[in-house]
């Protein structure tokens, strides 16, 4: 093993958290699950955790539905020699949020007030950034779980990888009752309406809210914030712990991209942001590269003894066309990948486009083998389409 694969293998062996990030649709979930399988094969007790409104990990692990608590995967068939353990779970945003409220509520009464608030019930899972925030919350909890040496976190399927870093901050800003207190509380003291707010801008904003959002909504909202009062300090503490955890040298970020211009532009931007935020970077994985494996056109070697006579003219034409189409695609992709490689100056692993889909443990083992030099790409899964 050499180059980027060695860097990744070392991270799998040494680190305790790997955050797998990238824009939606680049194969993040598959990459995260394959990394976890590889870690388990080489002896670690690893958990892969995904926040997953569409249950994609469940699909890639061949499970219909994953419970929202860690469940051990059966590696006996797919990777009989595995020395460690692989676990998987999906994150239930609403339940994590409930647990957070339970932990930080000052009293049972305060807790019930929040959990029963209509606004909270409707929107806790839909709050902008709550998926991302709860992922971080869960990560904090799992990092202390004795059952696992390594947690691989598959980040939410945001269109922009960046949302994942920024959304928790936005949610914290939203729940920051110290700001909202003076904004809303004077308005609803003991259910009595008063337009006395601290500043003229506040009054202006209030009128706006009243006129365009409506009074009932405002009342629910106000109750929601009043209920959250006093919990913010607890939240802030957790956020600080997450902040430290993400910058810990035992944590690592793996960036996944696909070999298309848009995806690479995003990956570059995301990498820059990680660097600015001083998050420990491990490597980039470029997924689904044409020409990185079995279909790679090998050029420049001298001609052998021609087997041309064996191939009839029509087939030769079709073969050449197939080869040329894939080579053209491979050349175009390579140009974009090189740009990513040069501009990030980080280890970059090319993962070939498979001949088949990856949607079970066996497929993940194949992907892991391709990453870490087990079997050649030609052995990609060739399951019969059922």
């Amino acid at each position, binding site marked *: 093993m050499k180059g980027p694969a060695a860097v990744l293998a070392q991270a799998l062996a040494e680190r305790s958290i790997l955050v797998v990030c990238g824009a939606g649709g680049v194969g993040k979930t598959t990459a995260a699950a394959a990394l976890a399988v590889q870690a388990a094969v080489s002896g670690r007790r690893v958990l892969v955790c995904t926040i997953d*409104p569409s249950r994609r990990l469940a699909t890639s692990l061949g499970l219909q539905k994953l419970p929202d608590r860690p469940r051990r995967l059966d590696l006996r068939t797919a990777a009989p020699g595995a020395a460690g353990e692989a676990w998987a779970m999906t994150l239930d945003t609403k339940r994590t949020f409930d647990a957070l409220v339970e932990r930080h509520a000052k009293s049972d009464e305060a807790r019930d007030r929040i959990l029963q608030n209509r606004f909270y019930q409707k929107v806790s899972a*839909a709050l902008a950034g709550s998926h991302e925030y709860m992922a971080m919350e869960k990560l904090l909890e799992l990092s202390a779980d004795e059952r696992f040496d390594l947690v691989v976190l598959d980040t939410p399927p945001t269109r922009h990888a960046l949302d994942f870093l920024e959304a928790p901050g936005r949610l914290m800003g939203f729940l920051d009752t110290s700001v909202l207190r003076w904004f809303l509380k004077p308005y609803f003291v003991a259910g009595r309406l008063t337009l006395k707010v601290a500043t*003229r801008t506040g009054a*202006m904003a209030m009128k706006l809210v009243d006129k365009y959002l*409506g009074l009932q*909504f405002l009342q629910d909202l106000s109750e929601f914030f009043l209920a959250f009062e006093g919990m913010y300090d607890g939240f802030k503490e957790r956020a600080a712990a997450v902040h430290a955890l993400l910058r810990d040298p035992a944590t690592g970020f793996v960036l996944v991209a696909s070999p298309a211009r848009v995806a690479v532009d995003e990956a570059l931007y995301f990498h820059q942001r990680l660097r600015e935020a001083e998050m420990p970077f491990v490597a980039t994985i470029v997924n689904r590269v044409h020409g990185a494996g079995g279909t790679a056109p090998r050029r420049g070697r001298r001609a052998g003894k021609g087997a041309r006579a064996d191939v009839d003219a029509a*087939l030769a034409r079709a*073969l050449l066309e197939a*080869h040329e189409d894939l080579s*053209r695609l491979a050349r175009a992709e390579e140009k974009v990948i090189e740009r990513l490689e040069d501009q990030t100056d980080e280890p970059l692993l090319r993962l070939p486009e498979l001949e088949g889909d990856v949607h079970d443990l066996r497929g993940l083992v194949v992907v892991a083998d391709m990453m870490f030099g087990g079997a050649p790409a030609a052995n990609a899964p060739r399951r019969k389409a059922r």
Partner: protein
Amino acid sequence: MAQKAHAGEGVATAEATTTAMLGWAVLLDDLLARRLLVLSGKGGVGKSLMGTALAVAAQRRGKRVLLVEVDTPPVAEASRFLGASPVGGEERELRPNLLAVNLDPPRVMDDYVRHVVRADFLARRVLDSPIYHRFFAAAPGLPELMVLGKIMTLEDARAGWGRKPRYDLIVLDAPATGHGLSFLKVPQTAVETAPVGPIGANARRVLSLLRDPERTALVVVAVPEEMAVVEALEFHRQATEQVGMSARAVLLNACHERRFSKAQEAEVLRLTAEGASGRLAGGVELEAALAAARHLVRRERMTRFYERRLRRALDLPLVSLPFLFKEEVGPDEVDLLADRLEAA
């Protein structure tokens, strides 16, 4: 005359069998006769590209079309597909009668505030206040509702003396599934959370637009791969059951067509098994060409498999669009896809 006969035939078929059996030309006309098309599917399946091709097909039919993306500013893929610089929050004409706009939720919110608070200095004070930013930027669903409200306004917009709609058709490239569904679920949640008052009223109007099959149709986009197809099916189920939208078509992007005859496929396998080596014309290694062929044969089989699976699972017309062997997609490719949409 021929066209009329064709249309009549389509109607007769519709009465006899299911919608999936209707002639596609009729169905495409019918689809493009909506006021709003909402495209959705897993991230990376090519929603923007499919939306752009649909918009071009509509524009060719003489319609005035607006392509809407919901995104942060630097992306705006649709404009790039049409060879233009990225569009922003202002509608811009990219081809005659084909306009595009990129609705960045925070900007839509700001515009709304400016619209509501007429006095400029007051609007600025609101927009500059930290409360506005902290609260409105993260307020659950509010940005989504604002964006959907804006789309509703665009659908309502009239132009000229005849009070003709400003746009015949709006094509919405909805955010990726998961988030895409929560995007479309927002109006319902808003109606439930704030049943009375202006926010509820606004959400109800948005909902009635989304649910009106005369005006709005959902277009499911997928690629022939397990996860994309699973997600497309899941999305379709949730959008119809939970949002009450009606889907009218499935676009299957990145399909591989048959390149080799059965006999040639067998020959490829035989040559592979024999470990045949040598060179083809231009010095191309036979081994590499065989590997390329196997890859493409396999992809073609997957295409057929997932086509069948989608057809079985959804009683909807399905159009397969070709995989493009290019890293960069430009106006030529969009036109090609629009041709294929029309000829399907």
